[in-house]
């Protein structure tokens, strides 16, 4: 199998002159975040780390075909979840989770991972909620320093929408599989770390040399920016803060690369006979035959098989990212395609948006409803493939699924943009912090923010409030969720 070689690029060339092992001063420090400190001890444990992965689809679900009638142990799965039958024991189904935001129907879902209220059509989230982060980004901010990329957001939502926010700033999605791969491996090789070996973050030597030319470029622009900011009003300062944050993330990547390169010096003996393993790179990426632009041009995006292939490819890239520890926070965002011919076999309507609106809500057309159900079943089948692959990857005694908190959800509860009772399925046991194989039903309108808080806690963020967990008019369970484990 062909593994693409990392090309000779300027970073490596520049590093030719550097001898000593490099380290990162910030690696050694506690990292305060807006949501509480992350315990250093948690970050240093031996064995594979805990990851977070999100698989988010459009248009909600069809509740009677998603939610089991009984709570407790999962026995009979409703039709949309049938594909998950082999993974019943790994699945924790949660119901009742809702969001109270009553913003106009087009925007209610914009902040669904942030739990914030007060969103307004045509206004960026930063204007109404300048400090809001989506919970995945809060996690990424806390643990992202330990990986090459703090997080990875991918998918192809229309209108370039994103649900990921960091301090009110949009984190856009990368839709093109080839570029996703390049982001991860332009200057590095895809390798699977040796989990269970002595901690690999042993590079605690001297600080980075200050005369690196590449560094000086970044230093200049950052210092000039600070000089500019000193003269500007608040809004403009904030805009340039976004810029600074973005440049700093580049700086971290370079530092990380330099460290990885130093770690792989030829004279350093590997700790076991097995050196770094090579993971599976999807064929079409490895041999460069996947052409995303072509997908757009020929309207192929309206073809279900081609879209399915795209979705699977993104899933593979997600697995690659997690396996190689390129990042520990991934978001896959799938809106769906415009026309579901081949999936929807009833009635005559195939257009997704029309189906959603006529097939959902109190007054819905039965045939359209069945069409929606077929679409959601299709999504779940794709998701089941992904779960199966993750379950089959051995990370030294535990599977990748065991070591990931994988969440299947949608940014709507149903196709009418509802915010009540989102479909939520958590896969894997999140390293023992979840007890799957059950359906847990929370009381009506329990804030979805409670779940996001619980997940954040499992990644070491010591905070007791998130989104509307305490401020929702429907606040419940003291802002938490009992019975998850």
């Amino acid at each position: 199998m062909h593994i693409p070689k990392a090309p000779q690029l300027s970073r490596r060339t520049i590093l030719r002159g550097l001898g000593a092992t490099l380290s990162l001063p910030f690696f050694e420090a506690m990292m305060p975040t807006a949501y509480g400190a992350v315990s250093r001890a948690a970050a240093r444990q031996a064995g594979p780390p805990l990851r977070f992965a999100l698989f988010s689809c459009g248009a909600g679900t069809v509740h009677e075909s998603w939610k089991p009638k009984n709570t407790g142990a999962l026995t009979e799965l409703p039709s949309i979840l049938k594909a998950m039958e082999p993974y019943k024991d790994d699945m924790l189904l949660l119901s009742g989770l809702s969001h109270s935001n009553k913003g106009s129907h087009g925007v209610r879902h914009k902040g669904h991972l942030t739990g914030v209220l007060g969103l307004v059509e045509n206004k960026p989230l930063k204007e109404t909620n300048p400090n809001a982060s989506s919970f995945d980004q809060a996690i990424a901010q806390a643990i992202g320093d330990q990986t090459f990329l703090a997080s990875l957001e991918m998918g192809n939502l229309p209108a370039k929408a994103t649900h990921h926010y960091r301090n009110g700033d949009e984190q856009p999605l990368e839709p093109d599989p080839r570029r996703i791969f390049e982001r991860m491996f332009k200057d590095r090789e895809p390798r699977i770390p040796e989990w269970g070996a002595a901690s690999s973050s042993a590079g605690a030597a001297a600080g980075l040399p200050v005369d690196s030319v590449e560094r000086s470029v970044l230093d200049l622009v950052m210092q000039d920016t600070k000089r500019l900011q000193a003269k500007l009003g608040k809004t403009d300062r904030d805009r340039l803060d976004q810029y600074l944050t973005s440049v700093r993330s580049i700086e971290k990547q370079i530092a990380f690369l330099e460290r990885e390169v130093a770690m792989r010096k030829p004279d350093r003996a590997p700790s076991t006979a097995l050196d770094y393993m090579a993971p599976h790179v999807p064929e079409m990426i490895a041999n460069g035959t996947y052409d995303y632009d072509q997908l757009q041009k020929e309207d192929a995006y309206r073809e279900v098989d081609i879209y399915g292939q795209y979705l699977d490819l993104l899933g593979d890239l997600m697995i690659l990212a997690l396996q190689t520890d390129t990042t520990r926070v991934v978001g896959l965002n799938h809106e769906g395609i415009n026309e579901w011919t081949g999936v929807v076999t009833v009635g005559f309507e195939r257009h997704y948006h029309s189906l959603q609106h006529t097939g959902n809500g109190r007054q819905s057309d039965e045939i359209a409803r069945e069409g929606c159900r077929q679409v959601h079943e299709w999504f779940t089948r794709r998701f089941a493939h992904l779960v199966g692959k993750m379950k089959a990857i051995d990370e030294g005694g535990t599977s990748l699924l065991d070591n990931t908190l994988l969440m299947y959800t949608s940014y709507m509860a149903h196709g009418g943009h509802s915010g009540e009772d989102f479909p939520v399925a958590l896969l894997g046991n999140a390293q023992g912090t979840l007890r799957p194989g059950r359906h847990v039903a929370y009381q009506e309108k329990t804030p979805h923010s409670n779940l996001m808080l619980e997940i954040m806690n499992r990644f070491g963020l010591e905070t007791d409030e998130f989104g509307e967990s305490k401020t929702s008019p429907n606040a419940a369970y003291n802002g938490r969720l009992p019975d998850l484990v």
Partner: protein
Amino acid sequence: MSYPASQIGTADSRLLPVAMACLAALPLFSGSRAFAEPVPDYNEIQPLVEKYCYECHGGNKTEAALDLTKSKDFASVLNDRKQWVLALDAIDFGEMPPKKAAQPSKAERAQLVDWLSQHVLNFDAEKFKSPGPGMVRRLTIAEYRNTMRDLMGLKSDVVAEAGIQPEDPGEHFDTQANHLSVSPLLMEKYLAAADAMLARIVPTSGKEALLDREASARLFFTRPVEGQNPAVAANQIIHRFAAWAFRRPLEEEELARFMQIFQLAQSKNYSFEESIRAPLRAVLIHPNFLYRIEQDRNVPPGQSYPVTDFELAARLSYFLWSSMPDAELFALADRGELRQPGVLMQQVDRMIRDPKAERFIRNFGGQWLGFRKLDAALPEQRYFPDFTPEIRDAMAQETASFLMHLLRSNGSIYEILDADYTFLNRQLAEYYYPPDDYAEPPIEMPAGDEFQKVSLKAEADRRGGILGHGSFHALTSFPDRTSPSERGKWVLGHILGTPPPPPPPNASFFDEDEVQQKQPKNFREKLAMHASEPACAGCHAKMDPIGFALDNFDPVGRWREEVSGEAIDTFGKLPSGETFKGVDGFKALLMNNREEFARNLVDQLLRYALGRELAGYDEFAARKAVKELQENGNGFASAIKAVVNSYPFQHRINSQGVGTSPVANTNSSLTQPAVQAVQLEPSNNPQQ
């Protein structure tokens, strides 16, 4: 001192920014100057607003996305003037508060109406004018792509190579500053694009094949001389590149910092070219390049002043070319001649004639009239086999060519509403008028692939003006059918500047009983039922009649007399009582309201050029521009000149003085006001 566009400065030239020379000419604001009348006191009506309006329009509940608690004083009221004018109408006509809510007494209602009429509707626009806050504004991706090309005259599109995708801004222009953000993902791509550009202009080992010799020659206009310190040549090269990139002269310290990187690289034995490359990389990811940043002055907060010539040149070039100024504009700015009598307008004329004006048509016209995203329009080829991607492109080209013609001939803007010609090529003409259906073509059929002006003759009633363009029809339809509501909404928003607010939160649902009682006879009735919910009817009553009048155009721009065997009923009646029939009838109505259209066009141009929404303090400038346009034959180019001559286009106030995002109401809905209003000061600028 000379800006390094024409002359090469020496290593010890003083690099005073031109802006400082301008400062001496401005009088300082004298704080003791008093208003003729005091600033109106919003507290005179605030208690009434709280009592009768806050329940639905304040804080927790915000019907129609209107939050009146954001208005706290006259300044913030003025910030949201448009929404308050609508509120005035609603209160005056008894629409608000709604019948079932508590009603103000006659005296109270009169008090509200009087205050709002006097101080908001009929306010002294000139007294309360402001150019709005200067804002740091990231280049849009379209502007960035053009700038990266124009900077060194590259042949390749390095921005596309780096995978940078244009924004998809939705209902507002992509130039709007508060929607332009940067993320780590985008920064990675900026670096990739910078590296791709540098590979074209700096010989790099391993990438020699990429070198664009012409562009490289522009960069290396000088070389180190034998025996001379290479820093001398480096200084000149970097200075010129950075000044062009930053669109202004550099300060000495700025250049010195870039030279430090050069020296660092030299000390590491990098070649001359590699040593140049590093500081250029810093320039290409620098905020002064990626953002448009204008200089504050040492004046009191809120006091306006003219922008520098360099800043004006950049405002002009990004407005008309979506890119950086060219050598001629830089030279005029450098000599301080840009504002001399006649010069500025001469430049506008030149820029309109330049091929780069295509970008204005595409970016302004294409967003305003929507044809920039025609490839995402919903109608499916599955249902309309003739509606191929080539036809989509052709339709976009029809509207683009039409606008370009108006621009370059300074044709009347009202031809956008109604014209007796359009622009077609053979393919599109035969699409609209298939030879099989038309034994004798009803219009002048063009010969080839080129788009040309085509007389519509008798078809002018139908196809003349934007309402007859296929681009409009496709943009306002669903995959398999027209959407009268979408068409009506489009006309209200894009043509008249009065878009309906977004649908209410429960827009999907309607009463089961109602549905079961009546069986709709046709699509029109079905839609009417659909829109009979009280929460929906108000807006649909304004939108749907327009759409039905235009329903002879199918989803993909062809004329039809019937749908599903039934003749189309194109009669429409608006809530105002006005009636019309068919597209020609509706066009006549539009022409009777042409003032609204002219004002809307000016508003759109201002929003696009200024990169923000408009507020009460822009009212003066907008009205003035409309007058100027009307006094100059209503020409499209005249409209643009009026905007270039306008107060906010040529002035700014300090970023520091007022702080935050300037405006409240967007053009698209009654939305929440900004966090802080612009601080109001009387204008004492002698130049305006």
